[in-house]
């Protein structure tokens, strides 16, 4: 992981030697690119990778579904709705407001607000149903509703606004200042603490809900804790870095295959490590070393992640879960 961390800082449109990195990190010399650009981006990659991995793991265990990911509760669709309203709906409010709204923080706020509202709606409806599976389907339904609203908005949007929205959808690990990074990391830290506190409940849930209940587990309370942890992690990450695809789904599978266990005492730290490493690698590739171009991080995570999962499944010939 340390190697990936340094490699990530080193590679980029301007290549920086490891020696320079150490010097800059130890405060011996100043390096503007490292301090204000590469270092925050590397930290963001670590937090985003581990946070999304954890929330994917939580959702897969809670919903007993290998295809569940951090966004099944409607978090990314809510965020995209919020951003779509700010970016594309601004023409409805007039041009001057648009300029005001399009700043960086307004996107963060819009996506947090959007995911919070959609999540709240999903939770309110879910509170009425007893079956955990129903929550999954309710989340999917809300996702389709928001997608529909987004497509209506994009139909009326100008080409420029559409492009801005699509660029947000690519996801981005860069552009985070140290202040934003602090907010992101402290909220994600709370999310990870809550996940660690849920380890025992998660392991019990491996037996299925009825057995878990017979073992004295308070299902409602644990379910709430797990959902709050996921929302904190996936919600803030989406707000700051956009809807990073695939990582949340793939990391738990890769970890389970490599460690060949379903015990969350092993999985949670392993997912944190793997999530960080894999997103650092993806980001290093996305910044296309020694060129001036950046690829969208979302494209890289899927291009690299999907074949890895397929390869692991084919090699083991068995979907362990």
């Amino acid at each position, binding site marked *: 992981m340390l190697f990936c961390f340094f490699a990530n800082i080193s590679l980029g449109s301007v290549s920086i030697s490891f020696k320079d990195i150490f010097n800059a990190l130890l405060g011996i010399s100043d390096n503007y690119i490292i301090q204000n650009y590469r270092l925050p981006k590397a930290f963001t990659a670590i937090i985003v990778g581990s946070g999304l991995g954890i929330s994917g793991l939580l959702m897969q265990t809670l919903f*007993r579904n290998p295809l569940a990911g951090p966004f099944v509760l409607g978090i990314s669709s809510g965020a995209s709705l919020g951003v779509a309203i700010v970016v594309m709906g601004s023409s409805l409010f007039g041009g001057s407001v648009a300029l005001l709204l399009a700043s960086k923080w307004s996107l963060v706020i819009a996506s947090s607000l959007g995911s919070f509202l959609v999540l709240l709606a999903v939770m309110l409806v879910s509170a009425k149903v007893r079956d955990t599976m129903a929550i999954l389907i309710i989340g999917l339904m809300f996702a389709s509703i928001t997608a529909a609203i987004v497509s209506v908005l994009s139909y009326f949007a100008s080409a420029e606004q559409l492009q801005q929205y699509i660029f947000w959808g690519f996801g981005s690990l860069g552009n985070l200042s140290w202040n934003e990074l602090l907010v992101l990391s402290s909220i994600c830290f709370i999310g990870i603490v809550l996940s*660690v*506190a849920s*380890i*025992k409940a998660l*392991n*019990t*849930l*491996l*037996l*299925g809900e*009825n*057995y878990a*209940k*017979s*073992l*004295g*587990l*308070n299902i409602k309370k644990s379910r709430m804790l797990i959902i709050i942890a996921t929302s904190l992690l996936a919600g803030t990450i989406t707000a700051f870095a956009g809807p990073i695809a695939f990582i949340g789904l793939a990391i738990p599978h890769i970890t*389970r295959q490599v460690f*060949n*266990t*379903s*015990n969350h*005492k092993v999985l949670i730290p392993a997912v944190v490590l793997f999530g960080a490493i894999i997103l650092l690698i993806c980001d290093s590739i996305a910044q296309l070393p020694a060129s001036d171009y950046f690829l969208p991080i979302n494209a890289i995570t899927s291009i690299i992640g999907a074949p890895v999962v397929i390869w692991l499944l084919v090699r083991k010939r*068995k979907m*362990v*879960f």
Partner: protein
Amino acid sequence: MKEENQHTILKTHNLSIGYQTKKEKTAVASNINIELHSGELIGLVGANGIGKSTLLRTLTNVQSPLDGSIHINEKPLETYSNIELAKALSLVLTESVMSKNLSVFELIALGRQPYTNWVGNLTEADINIINTALNETNLSDIKHKKCYELSDGQLQKVMIARALAQDTKLIILDEPTTHLDMYHKAYILRLLQKLAKDTNKTILFSSHEIDLAIQLCDKLIVMSEDIVVSDTPKKLIERGTFDSLFPKDFITFDKTTNSFKIIQ
């Protein structure tokens, strides 16, 4: 068995079970008076749809009784907290376990959950109890195998071992012999009989294997349309309880062989 060893583990008084909506109560069975003692193997038999599952769900506090009372270890069932109940009563259900990627040992270890700390670490005492459960069910040789490698019969033994590891005085099994062949049906029920004797636990199971249950159980609970009776198999046969279990023009109970015969 000596009289002083016979602690009452489970007792119901005028229990009435069924479903309750806002408007009305639908009773499935009523006036159920049963008393189960330690070291007993009890079979719950009856036709499909007669309310065996409803009775088990009521006894395990999944649904509330319509009327009457249930006492476990002489304490009313409704006063138990989740954890207290998990230490008094363990279950083997018909549903299959969600994660087959657990090893046999890991799965049985989950039976210790009510006793372990917040992160679920096993103490030396926990591991001893798990190993005892493994030995009692002859699973020690395969304890590192993954659950997806096991046959249905082995998996059922693992689930029984998990219930043993939960270290409760009462174990309730919902149709533990479904999906199993003749040999394994008999094997599982023999194992339950042995466990009840050796560990002095009360083991209650529902089953359609009435022939086997008559041979192995200390006591049977027979559910029929109008009445729920519980007694030793011998007395139930003498009283002719089994004759009314199924439609008489189709299946009858033969007292000489203690088995059911189809009328041709």
